[in-house]
């Protein structure tokens, strides 16, 4: 290395020799010093690793403590009640849970096919020199902060949808029995559908980048054999690549779902913050994270604050389950790739 800066152990042992001390004594001392610093460094790094575990533990504990007043007051009814009245201090989480699930489902319905098609393009169709730039561009979508999606959704996407897509949907499905309730009401622009659309764009890069990794991990021999038998590109993907990469793709989708469930700012801008469960996708609603972001600083009274923290706890439990499942599946495919 650099002899000037880093003193090697031998140098320390030899040059630090005092005249009064015999060489072996100072050498032992130097070694002891090194041993101490060695074990100290080990202990510090281990403490840091344990601290990461402690972090998750303390997040859970603090949320449970914060949520307990509300959970005690409302019990199980908190989960199934739609009322949300800060004045009478009566809270139920049904509307935010409903909004969170519905927006995420819309997002996944759009983002999964779109992401897989982009992956197909990137791994099978795209010329080699274009793969990297296009891949990076898609991943840049993940780099844009969520508040940017929010402001763009509010000022650009929502008015656009209000003028075009939403009236079209209302007209189109106005007389169809089930779909007419799904697309009922005036076109507000903001609402559950808009939030779902924005979430779809936001999770698209996660799905694309993970499925790209697992698509590329498919042994080329398998694909070549299939092509050699006369498969078309689509058939190769459908019957060779997808079955092989299934677990990984599902893991990637779950990871995207975890993001969609917890996404806050982008949704807060366009969801409309209405605590009600309405069957129409065009109506304003709310999600767990949007409720917390909108109301937490304005919450007066311990029960109100506690109800919002209980919402947070609920969100954490849901995302924890989804993300654990995602990680488990991705670990399985990693083990297979070796």
């Amino acid at each position, binding site marked *: 290395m650099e002899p000037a800066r*880093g003193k090697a*152990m*031998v140098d320390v042992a030899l040059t630090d020799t005092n005249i009064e001390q015999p060489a072996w004594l100072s050498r032992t001392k130097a070694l002891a010093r*090194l041993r101490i*610093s*060695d074990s100290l*460094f080990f202990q*510090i*790094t*281990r403490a*840091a*690793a344990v601290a*990461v*575990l402690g*972090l*998750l533990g*303390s*997040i859970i504990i*603090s*949320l449970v403590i*914060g949520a307990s007043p509300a959970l005690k007051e409302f019990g199980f009814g908190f989960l199934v009640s739609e009322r949300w009245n800060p004045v009478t201090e009566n809270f139920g989480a049904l509307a935010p849970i409903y909004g969170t699930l519905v927006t995420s489902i819309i997002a996944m319905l759009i983002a999964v096919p779109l992401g897989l*098609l*982009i992956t197909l*393009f990137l791994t099978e*169709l*795209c010329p080699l020199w274009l793969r990297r730039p*296009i891949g990076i*561009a*898609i991943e840049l979508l993940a*780099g*844009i*902060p*969520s*508040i*940017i*999606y*929010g*402001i*763009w959704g509010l*000022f650009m996407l929502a008015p656009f949808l209000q003028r075009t897509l939403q009236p079209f949907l209302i007209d189109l499905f106005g007389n169809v029995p089930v779909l007419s309730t799904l697309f009922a009401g005036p076109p507000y622009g903001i609402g559950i559908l808009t939030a779902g659309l924005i979430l779809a*764009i936001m999770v698209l890069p996660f799905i694309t980048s993970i499925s790209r990794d697992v698509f590329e991990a498919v042994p080329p021999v398998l694909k070549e054999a299939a092509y050699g038998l006369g498969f*078309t*590109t689509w058939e190769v*993907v459908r019957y060779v690549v997808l079955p092989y990469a299934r677990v990984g793709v599902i893991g990637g989708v779950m*990871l995207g779902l*975890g*993001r969609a*469930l917890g996404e*806050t*700012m982008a949704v*807060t801008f366009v969801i409309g913050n209405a605590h009600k469960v309405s069957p129409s996708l065009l109506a304003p609603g709310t999600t767990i*994270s949007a409720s917390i*972001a909108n109301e937490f*600083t304005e919450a007066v009274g311990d029960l109100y604050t506690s109800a919002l*923290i209980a919402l947070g706890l609920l969100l*954490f439990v849901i*995302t*924890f389950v989804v*993300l654990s499942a995602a*990680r488990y599946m991705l670990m399985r495919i990693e083990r297979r790739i070796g």
Partner: protein
Amino acid sequence: MATANALYTRRRRRNGIVLALSFSATAIGLGWLAIILGALVWEAFQGLSLKVFTEMTPPPGAEGGLLNPIVGSLIMTTLGVAIGTPIGILAGTYMAEYGRYSHITKVVRFINDILLSAPSIIIGLFIYEVVVAPMGHFSGFAGSLALAVLVIPVVVRTTEDMLLLVPTELREASTALGTPRAKMIWNVCYRAARAGMITGVLLAVARVSGETAPLLFTALNNQFFSADLNAPMASLPAVIFQFALSPYQDWQKLAWVGALIITFAVLALSVIARALTASRAQS
């Protein structure tokens, strides 16, 4: 023969349809990126001026800039990264160097991956519960801590990955020379993995500088200039949130300008991080 041909045509057609769909899906993805960035630049350039960087956030209806949120964001991001990075690097070091095959490492890796994608608003609630509520008031310090919690998993992940890439031969060689383990990690492993670890920190900076949700109820916001860590502090994302949802034209314009500043800072950071890893991979 005729049926075989029909089958072949059908397969060809189906293939063509899927390929066309995949082509348009990519076009949609890229188009969406272009639309968002285009809208951002278009809206923001109308409000961009030197005043943005020299004046405070204005009251409604007046002219002003974004100096206090920019400074607030810089302070909180710097402090958050300064707190989170050492913890992350140390934890990553343990996982890659000491406990590579231990059970703790497996658990920490799993938990860390969960923290990496956990909703950031939860982190805000957590810091509110453990810092803001006991202190009794919002503060820039609480905001920094919330950001630090977000920094840790990113740094842990990249540090571990990069240290695992360091060839075992290097470790063996330095151990054979009698180097103590801690010294080896500092002088051999860290040095070999430096570019990757810096990338990790840059990615962490990029991630937290756009975060809004964890700041909303930790640092809150501040209409005035304040470098006091013990008081509420303005930040760009929080100001964008407040201004964009306001009914005032001037405020909305400033929100767009702030959005442009953040986006370009974040994208520049991720491009630099990418370039660092790319040059490393080539060499």
